[in-house]
């Protein structure tokens, strides 16, 4: 039976069919739906882990214990999980271990555009790269076989357009995987110098054997067409290349680490002009060139951003797609915004009013850096807000510290903010940290986390007590405030930033998109009362519109959170429809 599936959904199906019984992940666009879909299979234990490092450690443990395990993350998540990855390469596996990593060329929803293929090379583990949903499923199943046969973790690399494109997939039955025996084997699983040294030898031998696999397995296949042009490509770039080049010859790489030296040489020897088509880094190109083969790659094609068939046509053949614009006026951009009713809006209103330096973090609240709030000063990586605020204070002194706050979401705090907070206490900082407790992991589309009290399957579980946690770390000043109580929020922020000791403010209000969150319903402006002072515009709600001669509430967008009514000095808002 064929089914139309997202690449991520097909990965989940592949894991299911391969008999996987343990899956762990931390959500991150574009990888999130892999584990959301795995969670639908009752045969698989699945979890949202606190971060990617823990997720991979859980998967490694499951593998050593004899199960087939899968662990999924976005590209920057692999930075967090890199530590276990590099040593799991040495220990190898018992049950198969597959690591899914989703890159984001074009940075649709990421802070950088790093190329995960470099990790496969660095960690000395094989990497596969599918080019559509069917291959997502097939490659995941095959990855488990490779993992077990070659005693290695296997990375499968996706990209946004693979993860988030649906294409047809042939569905198969699940093959139950018999749990392998667990045998105590410290020489393999206890990586300390004396044991790790011989394991490194094993790793290098394994990579040689895998290179043979890469040369011979049908992962890497030649599609002969005209031999005037030969194209070496992989993943989504293969699809773009097929459209741009048409009937030429292709070496389509499904295994991108290790690369097949013999196959590449054979292919290159038979084509007149050789092109390397790959998004991001010249990873394949550099390898091809070290083989002494002439090829055209990044001197013509960009190292930045996503490719497309048109881009390849333009850069290689100089064929530029001309289109006549309908209008010469500027088309306003439509950047993402915090939703109407978003709890973060109240907080940013206060932070902007107090003109504080805001050390930021990753989540919906990163949108606070954009107009109209424009409050956030920095955003580097998950958890960086707290260490960043401490660093600012240490560099510029206590007075600067009193005008600085760190802003971090609940899930991000659990992910990697706790260690930063410990640093603040341990090293005698005075930082004020605002934890945005909105009862969910928001940005990635509502996943549970250790602060919500529910597991990935929606089962009730113990909930991290943020207050007790902060107290235990050594934070004596912990305040809980509703960010929509603007006056109180402002008062608390003033007090805590002025305090000569570190403090945590828990800004507590659920995400406006959660089903149980109910508002009053749309409001409107009484034009007789409105003095057009534009105070309401300063909250930055997409439902309040400056029409030039008057201000209007877009009733289709307004949910009735009433935040704007709290900044209006003229009582000019009233319930719509009255």
């Amino acid at each position, binding site marked *: 039976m064929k089914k139309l599936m997202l690449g991520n959904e097909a990965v989940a199906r592949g894991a299911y069919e391969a008999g996987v019984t343990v899956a762990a992940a931390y959500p991150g*666009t574009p990888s999130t739906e892999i584990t959301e879909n795995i969670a639908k299979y009752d045969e698989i234990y699945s979890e949202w882990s606190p971060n990617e490092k823990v997720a991979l450690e859980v998967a490694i443990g499951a593998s050593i214990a004899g199960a087939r395990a899968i662990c999924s993350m976005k590209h920057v998540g692999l930075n967090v999980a890199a530590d276990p990855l590099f040593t799991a390469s040495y220990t190898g596996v018992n049950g198969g271990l597959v690591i899914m990593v989703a890159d984001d060329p074009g940075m649709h929803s990421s802070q950088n555009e790093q190329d995960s293929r470099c990790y496969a090379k660095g960690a000395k583990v094989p990497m596969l790269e599918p080019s559509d949903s069917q291959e997502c499923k097939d490659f995941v199943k095959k990855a488990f076989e490779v993992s077990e046969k070659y005693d290695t973790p296997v990375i499968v690399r996706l990209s946004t357009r693979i993860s988030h494109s649906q294409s047809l997939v042939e569905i198969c039955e699940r093959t139950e995987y018999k749990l392998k025996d667990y045998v105590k084997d410290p020489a393999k699983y206890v990586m300390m110098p004396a044991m790790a040294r011989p394991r490194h030898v094993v790793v290098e031998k394994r990579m040689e054997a895998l290179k043979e696999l890469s040369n011979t397995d049908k992962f890497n296949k030649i599609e002969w067409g005209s031999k005037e042009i030969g194209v070496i490509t992989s993943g989504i770039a293969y699809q773009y290349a*097929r459209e741009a080049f048409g009937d030429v010859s292709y070496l389509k790489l499904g295994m991108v680490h290790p690369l097949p030296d013999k196959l590449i040489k054979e292919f290159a020897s038979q084509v007149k002009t050789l092109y390397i088509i790959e998004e991001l880094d010249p990873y394949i190109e550099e390898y091809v060139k070290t083989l002494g083969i002439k090829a055209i790659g990044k001197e013509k094609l960009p190292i930045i951003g996503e490719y497309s068939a048109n881009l390849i046509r333009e850069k290689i053949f100089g064929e530029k797609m001309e289109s006549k614009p309908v*209008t010469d006026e500027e088309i306003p951009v439509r950047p*993402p*915004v915090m939703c109407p009713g978003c709890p973060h809006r109240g907080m940013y209103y206060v932070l902007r009013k107090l003109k504080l330096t805001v050390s930021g973090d990753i989540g*919906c609240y990163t949108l606070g850096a954009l107009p109209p709030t424009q409050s956030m000063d920095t955003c580097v990586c998950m958890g960086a807000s707290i260490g960043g605020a401490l660093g600012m204070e240490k560099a510029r002194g206590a007075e600067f510290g009193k005008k600085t706050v760190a802003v971090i979401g609940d899930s991000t705090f659990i992910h990697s903010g706790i260690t930063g907070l410990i640093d603040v206490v341990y090293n005698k900082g005075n930082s004020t940290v605002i934890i945005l407790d909105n009862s969910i992991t928001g940005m990635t589309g509502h996943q549970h986390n250790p602060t919500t009290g529910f597991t990935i399957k929606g089962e009730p579980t113990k909930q991290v007590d943020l207050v007790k946690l902060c107290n235990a770390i050594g934070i004596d000043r912990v305040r809980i405030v509703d960010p929509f109580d603007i006056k109180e929020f402002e008062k608390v922020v003033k007090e805590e930033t002025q305090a000569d000791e570190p403090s945590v403010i828990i800004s507590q209000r659920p995400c406006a998109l959660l089903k149980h969150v109910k508002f009053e319903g749309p409001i409107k402006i009484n034009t007789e009362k409105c003095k057009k002072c534009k105070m309401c515009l300063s909250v930055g709600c997409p439902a309040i519109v400056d029409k030039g001669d008057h201000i209007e509430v877009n009733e289709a967008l307004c949910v009735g959170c009433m935040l704007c009514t709290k900044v209006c000095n003229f009582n000019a808002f009233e319930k719509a429809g009255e």
Partner: protein
Amino acid sequence: MEKLNIMIVGVGGQGTLLASRVLGNVAMKMDYDVKVSEVHGMAQRGGSVVTYVKIGKKVYSPIIEKGEADIIIAFERLEALRWIEYLKEDGTLILNDQRIDPMPVITGKAKYPENIVEKLKNNYKNVISTDALQIAKECGNMKAVNTVLLGILAKSTSIAKEIWLESLKENVPAKAIDVNLKAFEAGYSA
């Protein structure tokens, strides 16, 4: 039918998902290859969203590029203007005549372009502009905007109506079938 490229453009949260799901289903019923592509995440939060649906004997790239779309379904006027260059010269634009101001317009940093529909009609001969929100209301549910637009879309393709109806039934919740069928018919005969 050799191939059919359809783009669905709108504002995050407008419910463009159903249309792409039904389209994918239609393609499968006709035994065609199909790819449906959209970007999740950041783009959902009230930003500009676009879905590509490519149907054909064999589909490679999931992306539709400038001048390649046979049909664009625009859920909002400004988004129609933003993506119109992706439409083939003789392609069809199905426009829901609704306005949602983006943040730069709200804050007064940019102006919402005037007379969008006329500008589009001056440059493209097949522009179907409709107040799908009103039609949906008349059918009994404001949320059925997407189904009204699907009805219009169905009419402008050569694909048999029965196939559309089957796919629609398979993709809407049981309790919403009646209102959706009504909305589809309203669009089909609009």
